[in-house]
């Protein structure tokens, strides 16, 4: 399976040679590096390999610590149940967490963007996992990643709406700097993702990098080879990949301290209002 994927990747890489040659730049492996180029390549290596491990490790440790500290705190003295009770409280809590009926009722336009965003975000995670040679939701020889760019648009467009909304009316007045920074972090993360998943096919010769190219990078990461991804990701688009990975690393690092923790807390917090009360 892995050999197939690597073979597929090299075929795809051959197909993209001319495009890569067109896109040649100072970052290309074939061009002698200046001192700045050497420093830059070391930074880019750090960002795309060691920092990825550090960021994910940090995220996992901090998120687990936070969740454990929340659930090991004393339970409240009473249940903050909301009435009328639902027939199936757990189903109601799951509906609250995943379908957000309260938002649909009170802010329907916002709800549409939220649903598109969250569904696309789940597909985005799947799309990234799909890059691994061992997972093939999309054909490994496909040049496209999952959704052929649509998934990226699915998270990016709502992000513009969220930013405009954040700057408007009462929402602006309740916002903190962290709210804006998080939105812009995600916006640029997504825009860079769009460029390397979809925009990199907009050259005169088609794709610069394909799913198969990225699979070689991911394969190195999961096998802890510590290989320089520059070797498998040729062309100037590599810098966009580095920036994308950098912002993803930053996102992983800030996630446990941010409101994005609602990813883990939305269901348990909704259970609080749906769970029938029993005295202790």
């Amino acid at each position: 399976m892995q050999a197939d994927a690597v073979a597929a990747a090299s075929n795809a890489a051959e197909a993209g040679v001319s495009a890569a040659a067109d896109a040649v730049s100072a970052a290309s492996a074939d061009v002698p590096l200046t001192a700045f180029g050497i420093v830059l390549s070391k930074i880019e290596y750090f960002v795309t390999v060691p920092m990825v491990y550090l960021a994910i490790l940090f995220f996992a440790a901090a998120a687990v610590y936070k969740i454990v500290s929340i659930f090991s705190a004393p339970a409240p003295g009473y249940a903050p149940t909301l009435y009328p009770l639902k027939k199936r409280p757990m189903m109601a809590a799951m509906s609250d967490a995943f379908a957000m009926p309260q938002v649909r009722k009170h802010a329907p336009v916002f709800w549409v963007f939220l649903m598109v965003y969250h569904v696309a975000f789940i597909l985005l995670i799947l799309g990234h996992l799909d890059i691994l040679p061992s997972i093939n939701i999309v054909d490994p020889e496909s040049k496209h990643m999952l959704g052929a760019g649509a998934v990226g648009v699915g998270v990016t467009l709502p992000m513009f709406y969220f930013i405009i909304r954040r700057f408007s009316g009462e929402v602006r007045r309740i916002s903190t700097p962290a709210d804006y920074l998080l939105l812009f972090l995600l916006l640029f993360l997504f825009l860079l993702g769009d460029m390397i998943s979809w925009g990199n096919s907009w050259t005169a010769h088609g794709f610069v990098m394909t799913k198969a190219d990225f699979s070689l990078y991911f394969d190195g990461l999961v096998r802890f080879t510590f290989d320089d991804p520059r070797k498998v990701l040729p062309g100037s688009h590599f810098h966009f990949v580095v920036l994308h990975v950098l912002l993803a690393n930053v996102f992983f690092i800030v996630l446990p301290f941010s409101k994005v923790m609602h990813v883990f807390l939305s269901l348990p917090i909704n259970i609080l209002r749906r769970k029938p009360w029993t005295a202790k």
Partner: protein
Amino acid sequence: MDREVSAKLEVLFKTKLNSAMRMYLETCARCGVCVKACHVYNSMPETKYTAVGRAEVVRKLFRAYFKLEGKIAPWLGETVKLDDVTVDELYDAAFSCTGCRRCVTYCPFGIDTQMIMAIAKALVIGADKAPAVLSILSDMSIAKGESIAETAVAYEEAIRNLESDVKALWAEPWKPGAPFIPIGVKGADVLYVALSGAHSIVSAAAIMNAAKENWSLSYFEAVNFGAFLGDAAKAQAIAKRITDEAVRLGVKEVAIVECGTAFRFMKYMTGRHPFKVSAFVELIDRYVRGGQIKLDDGKIDGTVTYHDPCQIARNGGVFEEPRNVIAHLTKNYVELKPSREDNWCCGGGGGLISMGELDFRMKSSRVKADQLRSSGAKVVTTACENCHSQLVDLNEHYGLGMRVEFLSHIVAKALMA
């Protein structure tokens, strides 16, 4: 504020950080969906009167003292310090919130602003800036519990004086030879906990006598000023007077007078008891459904509507019972819009009635007045003392031309043999 006080408040804050509170403080996305939930904001559109605006005062402190973000980049979350200015903001947030929890029905996470306001109230109390009237009333309630023997005789005498009023509504006691207002009866099935006013006793006594209920009046008033104040220890001490009495008498059920907070606190916030806790309107409904009382459905002139008290309906689960009772009182009923769990708060809860605050209560409840007016009803009934007082004030202030009635009062007047 000196460092010693702020350090004490930080410790106080930490004691409130239970698992639910931690989630409420960590999770808010500041999406703003709750902005339109609060009756105060809808009547006086200022950010500090939104649910998120109130909670953010507490969250800014939480970030400052309990989050890494507050230590290394306080500007990210606009953290604030525990000082006099912040305590004043906490006071404004907590004592302009009626604790109605309408915002919980808007929030995609179900964040409970009332619970967050418990921190604000605790810090205000810790800084010795709590509303004096609520503190005094709480202390008086607790003192009464500690010295009931001294006041019992005078109370029994006052109760005897009400018996003729009860008799005028229903001519028989619950069983031949029993007093019209039994008090301190061991082995009673129901312990009825009233308020200090006669209006909370007379109609209820007539209804229970008509239903032939084996009941007894409590020596204590149900209202829990400790809960309004936000002082958990005082609130529990006030409730304990009643639970101790109920256990001493061996009653099967404690029926709480038409008072939302007293009902919710006793039923949901005082732990497990060897007796059932009911809102009085639940008893009336049981009597009607069981045929223990019969009601004349032609006694009320004009269209009737019902205001769901937040602590009994949205926060207590009693929706159908009052509607069933009203269906036996009139054929001319209209629902408020919105109603049930979406009903607008009257604007008098959370201790605001006890604190006075007439000007704020009237300004902050304009949407409630609009809702009542647009119903077209001539009579608004409710099952909560605070709601009743507030609706009477709104009726007068906004010239609604309605009649405001306790549900128990119109039931007592409609009793048929």
